[in-house]
């Protein structure tokens, strides 16, 4: 019997009084228990745990001991952490300013159906295959002041100690992070731009609208939801980004790139002050959730509501 036959069958054969309605309303909740259990134990418990540990003293080996608000006052008044917060804000804003317009333009460009743009997309996405560790290591040698790119092109302004100079290391990180993530965000924009009905552009062109006008009056408004989603990912991503910065600079030179996730790691796993690290962790969770929530509101209907509607 094919699936299609089965669809029709019960409607014809069920005469309401003769056959009782099936008692079962669907699968038992127990079927979702393993997934919920994993999630609760390794994700929800740690979320509560980071708050609890922020009120304890723990060196990572012994037993955590209650410390009250001592960690909070010491970490929040520590200039290193204050500097880390400032750096995280700078990194986040700068990353957004670089990535958002670039990936939007690239995504719209790649949404075109020309053959060469398909080839273009294949090449542009290559950075997505590299792990952050791989990118960090490759760029470290590429940016080497003695044997790197600067010497290759013979351009003196490129021949700098990019990662060793405190004023250059942060801009360089913003660039390398953009190198990693712009392909991903371009993908999002490409998919969204392809869904804009072509008739809208045709109508506008007939009315004599130029490319600039159609871009600002059709493309941008139609991409609004994608801009919100992609910006949320960029902002939360930059705030919590660790891997690449750890590999490339480890927070240095000095503390010049010690952003909040680095500060947390170095406190906890290098200075063995897990309580202090947990304080920074709580800050990251709060800021991350707040940014997601605010941008979702900004975007009008929240993504979560639309997910729940279909049920």
């Amino acid at each position, binding site marked *: 019997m094919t699936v299609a036959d*089965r*669809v029709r069958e*019960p409607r014809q054969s069920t005469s309401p009084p003769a*056959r009782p309605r099936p008692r079962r*309303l669907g699968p038992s*909740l127990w*079927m*979702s228990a393993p*997934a919920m259990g*994993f*999630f609760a134990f*390794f*994700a*929800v418990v*740690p*979320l509560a*745990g*980071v708050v609890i540990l922020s009120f304890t003293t723990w060196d*990572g080996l012994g037993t955590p001991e209650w410390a009250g608000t001592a960690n909070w006052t010491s970490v929040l008044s520590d200039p290193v952490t204050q500097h880390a917060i400032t750096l995280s804000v700078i990194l986040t804003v700068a990353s957004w300013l670089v990535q958002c317009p670039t990936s939007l*333009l690239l995504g719209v460009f*790649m949404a*075109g159906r020309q053959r060469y743009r398909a080839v273009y997309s294949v*090449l*542009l*996405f*290559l*950075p997505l295959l590299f*792990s*952050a*560790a791989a990118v960090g*290591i*490759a760029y470290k*040698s*590429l940016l080497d002041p003695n*044997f*790197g*790119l600067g*010497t*290759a092109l013979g351009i003196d302004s490129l021949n700098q100690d990019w990662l060793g100079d405190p004023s250059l290391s942060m801009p360089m990180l913003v660039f390398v992070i953009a190198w990693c993530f712009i392909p*991903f965000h371009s*993908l*999002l924009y490409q998919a969204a731009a392809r869904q804009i009905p072509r008739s809208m552009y045709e109508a506008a062109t007939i009315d004599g609208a*130029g*490319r600039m006008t159609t871009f600002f009056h059709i493309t941008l408004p139609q991409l609004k939801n*994608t801009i919100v989603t992609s910006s949320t990912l960029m902002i*939360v991503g930059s705030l*919590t980004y*660790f*891997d690449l910065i*750890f590999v490339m600079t480890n927070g240095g030179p000095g503390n010049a790139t010690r952003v909040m*996730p680095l500060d947390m790691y170095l406190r906890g796993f290098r200075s063995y002050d*897990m309580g202090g690290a*947990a304080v920074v*962790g*709580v800050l*990251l969770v709060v800021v*991350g*959730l707040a940014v997601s*929530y605010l941008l979702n509101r900004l975007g009008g209907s929240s993504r979560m509501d639309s997910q729940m509607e279909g*049920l």
Partner: protein
Amino acid sequence: MRTRTQRPNLVGGLVGTFWLAVTLVPIYYIVVTSLRPRADYFTSNPLSIPTEPTLTAYREVLAADFTKYLVNSVLVTVATVAVTVTLSLMAAYVIVHNRSALSRRAFEVLLLGIAIPIQATIVPVYYLIVRLGLYDTLWALILPSIAFAIPISVLILVNFVRDIPRELFESMRLDGVSEWSLLWRLVTPMTVPAIITVAIYDALNVWNAFLFPLILTQSADKRVLPLSLWTFQGSFTVNVPAILAAVVLSVIPLLVVYAIGRRFLVSGLTAGFSK
């Protein structure tokens, strides 16, 4: 019908060309340097094509236990993805078809989970793993990775399970088919593309993960690929061709996937964000 050819997209073309160059130059550099003899690295132009290309650097990396790290990465990735996909499909089926308040509540909690930044929970995850006696085992990587992959996986699968006509379930239930065989005989075959997408998305995240391996493992036999790149950098300090050969080798498995199923890889990457 087009009466007028569109004017070329000048801004897009310029930005596009510029960014393509920015993208490709480092990749080109990685490849040519990895083929360069070690002595030439210090003397020749970094972007020149090596006059005598050699695979020595690759041999050195393979001799330095690279395959062991590769096997570890494969084990962690396969185990995580297999468990995550199975459990998430079960949960997605319950969320769509069990219409109780409790299952709605569970889904709301899972959706919140997507917004939790993993990085922020490393201290308590480390605490849990140490207390469970799993520190420095591959389980220390697998178990938390499953937990953090579940929310987004369930979300994507729910969207697809919801699209299967309810009538199919009703009629099969009337025939006395059990819920487990519905899951196996109806839900699984009808969500294959979604399962592949989710599997690829989860696999990419686990394969490239760096932070969990860094804090939850220590010894060389438990090392996974991204972490091994970092340690290669320490041990091969002056042998840059070998470091970059390791980078190339770490990318090859994904490059193969990219070449075979680009469409799936791309949909896996954007899964849950572009729908």
